[in-house]
């Protein structure tokens, strides 16, 4: 069986993350009744979110990921994301949007030019639209 990327965004495989957190949420409109008991109504079930971090990425790798969500570079804020869904123990494709794309700073800098050669602690969260 061929190796399959954990997460694919718009048909582009992401590098294997150092950590991968799957999250399944139910949106519920809830309130406490006059007895103090929570009563509610489901607004939407099974909303997916994935959180990924990479200990180290090259600037090009990280830039390529960020550009996937930037229309200037051919990306899109809403993307078709194929991810390993914890709810069904299989890959599934859903429309998702990204949170802030953050990195923890330069892990290593070229000593002569000052150009970062690696980023550390890059993080990306994708939330189902």
């Amino acid at each position, binding site marked *: 069986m061929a190796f399959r990327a954990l997460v694919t965004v718009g048909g582009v495989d992401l590098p294997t993350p150092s950590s991968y957190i799957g999250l399944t949420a139910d949106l519920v409109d809830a309130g406490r009744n006059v007895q103090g008991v929570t009563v509610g*109504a489901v607004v939407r079930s099974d909303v997916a979110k994935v959180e990924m971090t990479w200990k180290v990425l090259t600037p090009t790798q990280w830039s390529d990921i960020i550009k996937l969500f930037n229309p200037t570079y051919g990306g899109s804020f809403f993307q078709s994301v194929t991810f390993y869904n914890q709810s069904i123990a299989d890959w599934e494709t859903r429309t998702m949007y990204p949170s802030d794309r953050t990195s923890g700073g330069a892990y290593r800098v070229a000593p002569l030019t000052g150009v970062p050669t690696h980023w550390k602690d890059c993080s990306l969260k994708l939330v189902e639209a």
Partner: protein
Amino acid sequence: MITVSDAWKALHLGQLLPEAYVEVSYYITEPGLVDDVTSSATGGAAFSKADQIKDFSLRSEPMFATFENNAWVLNGKYNFVPSPTPFTGDVGYVSDAVSLSDLTFTANPLLTLQLGSVHAAAIPGITITFAPDRNEWATDFIVRVYNGASLLLTDTVTGNTESVSVRDITGIEDYDKITVEIVKWSLPDRYARIMEIALGLKQVYTKAELFGYEHTSSGNLASAELPKNSIQFKLDNTDGRWNPSNPTGLEQYLIERQTISVRYGFKINGSIEWVKVGTFYMSEWDTPSNGLEATFTARDSLEFMGAIYNGTRSGTLAAIATAALTQAGISSTLYSLHANLSAITVNFTADTTAYTISDILQMCAHAAECVIHQTSTGVITIAPLNTFTSDYAITQFNSFTFPEYTLSKELKSVSVNSDLGTAVNGVTGEILTSDNPLIETEAIANAVATWLVGIYGDRRVLKGNFRPDPRAEVYDKITVTSKYATDVIYLTQIKYTFNGAFRGEYEGRVMA
């Protein structure tokens, strides 16, 4: 109270409700057009009702068991055609011959919508509902538009894959006939079925498209004013489709009184149970040029009865109300009058006051000790208040706040038509006066006065917020449990807000 299944009622007793749905079906067409249409078809089955397909009834197919190949699934949802035929319920058009193995028909079914006169007003297309309950459709069909014998335009469709086909056709104007010819069906060995052909575009907005939805209704237990029933919904306008300056947008087709049908649903055991909530008519819209949302307000038919009444001024209240409703363009199938109205005869020909149609209906209802409301199926009903307490209750479990009590002024007595009739409630308080030119005798005036004491004798009015079951309607008699007591009230105001789930506000009057 809207009729729902026991499963629907049971789930509202639970702590967590399943997913709820609102569906707003909006017909962009010429108002009143459907009343001028006669529909017919070639080659229908014995139980086929081609005359039904012209309306916007959101009908569900009764799912008759037939011997079509692989069609009759033994899942308990199929019924035999009732005897004797012809079947009188909702069924729409069903062909009398099945499709062949190549999906064609020996003789193509042809459905005709004939208008009574040439209609100059343009409509933006037509919407054909094939058989969504069976997930079947015509893959190939031809729409033709005529003016007399002249063929104005032809829309040939091939490869359709939708059970509800919205055909955006430019140029349907100055026409008096539209035909739909079915060429190929989606499956072999099946009857061709059409539930509905709507002249105009039927836009269906679900919770995926609605940015907001509110349903507000109110009523007066003494028919002192007409009930109000309206919806307001917001739609996405980021693509400018409702922009007034968009030459290809839909705003150009917005006309007052266009029909809007609303359904509510809950997911029960894996499928959605839908209930019709009502038929409304476009009243106002706000589609700012640079707005991201377009807001629409629609009201029930009682809002459009402001014309001066010109019908008979003598006869039974039923005859007068019928004249008023007929003048308002309400067909006899869309109103229901209680026998109380037939038992009272009046003559107010000497009264030359210019009353509106709504004034007349309100006065008829008041004189007959009735209330007016439009049912969820769109029928204007004038009848006494329901005396049965509903099985639905607002309890401490589904209340977000305890009911708030207010007291109306103490009622001493009621005087109808300057003491023509009176009824006493107590020794102190205010005297309620009521003037109605359709109350002419002392006996009726006394009866109405006694009726009003029954309504206003108890001073308590309750209101609160709750997690609603949206089957509850104004004038329903329900129980409300407060911190110390359980009261029986008639709902006089109710508001449902839907933002993915229903929230509700209610107001009602305690009646002794």
